[in-house]
């Protein structure tokens, strides 16, 4: 009787001890379990941080939160593609599974990156609806249901950073804010109350590092885990900013 060999999963993980130190690779081999995903494998390594050569090492650092692909925290580069590790099922991945951080962002440690720049971008483009006041402003204008459903697709953005990682124009020599924040401008400009601050947002993305930096490689829309029509948003904003620049220059109105 043939001896049944236990099925294993092999990981090649890019590691980095501090933000400034050089990255190195460590290989791990785990026993296969059904329905494993990258996060459960990382947890397994954390329980027993021993490399394939038998060397005991430090547990791997990574970010995670919701574990159902809505928070965006666990994004990393898996077999060359940026995606969420919670929905990266081992059964669907080619081995060895190569994990590395999204190096478009500053690496904190191992697979952990600092996505602060994305949140700064949201502030820069005023990705909110200002409703605060000293008295009750009353109900805002109604939003047609059809438009709400359309806008819902844009609101699925979880600031995960995959589109920035995929974009050839987001890198250390450019200050492009990237597709996600731009698409949020379209979302908030489409809202009946948000529309009242339309020109503020358009003028913000017409600044340096803004919309004009898009080079139309369209990697973002192909990579977005939420299927957000990012390039359609960018093209629509191109049209809006064209008109806004005419308004600004010829001064037809202030909104």
């Amino acid at each position, binding site marked *: 009787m043939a001896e049944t060999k236990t099925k294993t999963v092999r990981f090649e993980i890019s590691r980095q001890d501090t933000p400034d130190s050089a990255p190195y690779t460590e290989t791990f081999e785990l026993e296969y379990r059904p329905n494993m995903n990258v996060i459960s494998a990382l947890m397994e390594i954390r329980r027993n941080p021993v490399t394939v050569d038998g060397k005991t090492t430090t547990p791997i650092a990574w970010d995670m939160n919701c574990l159902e692909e809505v928070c965006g925290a666990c994004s990393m580069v898996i077999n*060359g*593609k940026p995606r969420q590790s919670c929905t990266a099922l081992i059964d669907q991945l080619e081995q060895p599974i190569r994990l590395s951080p999204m190096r478009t962002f500053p690496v904190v440690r191992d697979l952990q990156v600092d996505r602060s720049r994305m949140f700064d971008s949201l502030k820069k483009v005023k990705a909110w609806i200002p409703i605060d006041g000293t008295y009750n402003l009353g109900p805002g204008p109604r939003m047609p249901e059809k438009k709400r459903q359309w806008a819902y697709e844009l609101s699925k953005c979880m600031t995960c950073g995959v589109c920035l990682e*995929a974009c*050839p*124009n987001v*890198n250390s*020599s*450019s200050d492009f804010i990237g597709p996600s924040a731009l698409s949020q401008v379209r979302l908030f400009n489409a809202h009946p109350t948000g529309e009242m601050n339309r020109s503020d947002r358009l003028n913000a993305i*017409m*600044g*340096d*590092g*803004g*919309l*004009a*930096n*898009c*080079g*139309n*490689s*369209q*990697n973002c829309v*192909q*990579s977005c885990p939420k299927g957000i*029509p990012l*390039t*359609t948003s*960018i*093209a*629509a*904003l*191109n*049209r*809006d*900013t*064209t008109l806004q*620049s005419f308004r600004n220059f010829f001064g037809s109105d202030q909104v």
Partner: protein
Amino acid sequence: MAQNREFGNRRLHSLLGVVPIGLFLIFHLTVNYMATKGADTFNAAVHLIEFTPIKIVVEFVVIYLPLIFHAVYGIYIAFTAKNNLGRFSFFRNWMFFLQRASGIITLIFLIWHVYTTRIQAALGAEVNFDMMATIFSSPFMIAFYIVGLISTVFHFANGLWSFSVSWGLTVSPKSQKVMTYITLVIFLVLSYIGLRAIFAFV
């Protein structure tokens, strides 16, 4: 000081590529095509252009200044990109890369092309059928011109696609797809016109 210029610069870069540079390219290729009707027809067309009023001013305003801005800013754009075809081999990402590569190739070609024709003319040489025939007597030059032509025409055709996105003309994925086919036809037609002209001198 020079803050918030990027939007204006990028839009100007996009516009200049089509008007006037793109229009001049079509005009230039059309005149070249006269060579397929014989040396006399070509020489007649060249003479006609030589009588353009205030020619040197027109050349600067319509060709040199827009081209220099487009080239210098284009080099900056090309070298701030970090190409990632290895990881993302999508069609549009290829076009993104080829647009930048063809821009650089076209610039090298144009510098050589302007040096051997317009600058020689300024130094006293006569631009006519024979001048081109002499250039094309070398097989290397034929190959160099073919690469230069294809690269230029590609850069124009694909640039027209990004122009229509950058100015917000084609917003929906469907319109962008249709524009891909339209610009493909423009690429093929202009390449045919240009190649016919090159081989008319050989």
